[in-house]
């Protein structure tokens, strides 16, 4: 259903938001460091080697993993390839336009990619069919279906969940010919990186901002944390700034929040696997 509001009402909402933040509350009733409800469904797309539909509140994204066989990069002859794209589909909001990814969608894809890559979530050295010649190429495409803030985390969780449930069709080289076998191998996983996005609004730090909150935020920081509680990728965005004290606060918050979310994802992914 259509949601249209006048600028006057928007300004009233904003004042209300700021007043609430001062007393540690948010418009939707959450505490400053509470996430919205996270729902994950994997395996929806049978034609993809892995897939996950994620809702974070009203933000909804779907990630699909396709596996192809390709040549490795000349300077990485013993590594598989990882390619991550994201598109904010025009159906996702009244403000999204069809066309190639804009600046914001490119940043989104690159930050999510960085979290996967820098955490070394996937052991790319195990994705080699024949060194220097044939490796697996992991294409991760994310379609944003509905936007209501925090695309970074929703996209990251969808990508991580899709990768965790990906089955790679096994190829072999026999007599110099590439043969697709009937076997599948699991995606080789080292760690589960968790993205935690925080917004600074009027000097308050909140996690998992909604669209309304993002409209008012000064700065955004996304930190990706691995299972050893190390920060592996960070992106500060928007035109606001942060003090050193705020950054220290944010690091600890990211590490703290990542633990619960990782457990949630593991529950869904491995729980589901047992069911099958």
């Amino acid at each position, binding site marked *: 259903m259509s949601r249209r509001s006048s600028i006057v009402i928007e300004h009233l909402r904003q004042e209300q938001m700021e007043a609430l933040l001062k007393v540690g509350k948010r418009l939707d009733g959450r505490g400053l460091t509470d996430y919205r409800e996270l729902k994950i469904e994997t395996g929806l*797309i049978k034609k*993809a080697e892995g897939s996950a539909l994620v809702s974070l509140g009203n933000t909804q994204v779907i990630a699909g993993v396709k596996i192809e066989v390709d040549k490795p990069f000349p300077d990485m002859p013993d590594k598989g390839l990882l390619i991550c794209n994201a598109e904010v589909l025009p159906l996702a909001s*009244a403000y999204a336009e069809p066309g190639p990814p804009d600046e914001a969608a490119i940043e989104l894809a690159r930050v999510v990619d960085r979290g996967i890559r820098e955490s070394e979530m996937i052991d790319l050295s195990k994705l080699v069919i024949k060194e220097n010649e044939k490796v697996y190429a992991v294409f991760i495409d994310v379609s944003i279906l509905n936007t209501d803030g925090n695309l970074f985390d929703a996209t990251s969780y969808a990508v991580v969940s899709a990768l965790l449930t990906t089955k790679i069709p096994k190829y072999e080289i026999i007599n110099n010919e590439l043969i697709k076998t009937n076997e599948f191998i699991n995606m080789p996983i080292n760690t589960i990186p968790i993205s935690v996005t925080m917004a600074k609004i009027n000097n308050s730090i909140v996690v998992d901002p909604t669209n309304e909150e993002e409209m008012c935020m000064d700065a955004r920081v996304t930190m990706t944390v691995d299972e050893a509680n190390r920060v592996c990728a960070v992106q500060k965005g928007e035109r606001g700034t942060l003090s050193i004290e705020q950054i220290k606060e944010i690091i600890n918050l990211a590490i703290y929040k990542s633990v619960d979310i990782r457990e949630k994802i593991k529950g869904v992914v491995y729980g589901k696997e047992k069911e099958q």
Partner: protein
Amino acid sequence: MGKLIQNGIRIDGRKFDELRPVKIEVGVLKNADGSAYIEFGNNKIVVAVYGPKEVHPKHMEMPDKATLRCRYHMSPFSVEERKNPAPSRREIEISKVTREALEPALILEDYPRTAIDIYVEVLQSDGGSRCAGITAAAVALADAGIGMRDMVCACAAGKVDDTIVLDISDVEDKEGQADMPVAYLPNLKQISLMQLDGKLTAEEYEECLNFALKGCLQVYEIQKETLQKRYFSEVSKSE
């Protein structure tokens, strides 16, 4: 090549005039003015409608009616081989025929100087994705409250192993002899989409068209049920 029909039963177990399972949900996207999700066999498609709204760019504005725009798009992971996300020629053609299949059902004169945008996103593709997309789009348009003269329901028929069958699947499309997607305005009894790939005699053509129309009417029943459940049985739950 294995035969597609054996003992009067098709390769996926269906009878000649049997539809694949169809499931439609309405109002699945929060931001859209209207939306629907359809599973039609293995097709999984989500449709959003935005509008009536301001027209950009301005020169597309029409003084006497709404500008209808449509984008049929496949997610890169929706098919066997990863698809480049840029729109292909096939997607551009299907966007056009989808728009033309829906337009006669819409009372666009009620919304002059506005635009109505229909976005059809194929998350998983199977045979007949354009018919499934049109079917879901018609439901999403109703959900958006756009004035309609009639529903639009769509279904393909075709020829497989020299037999006319309803609702061609992926394998039947690739290995079969003909595929005819049809969209139908069931009350006005008018056909708004008709295409054909494959060879049919005049007699076979008529038989195939009749099959397709019967399929359309079955799809129409599911559309009606879906909307009814959404707007009447659940009236108490709605906000």
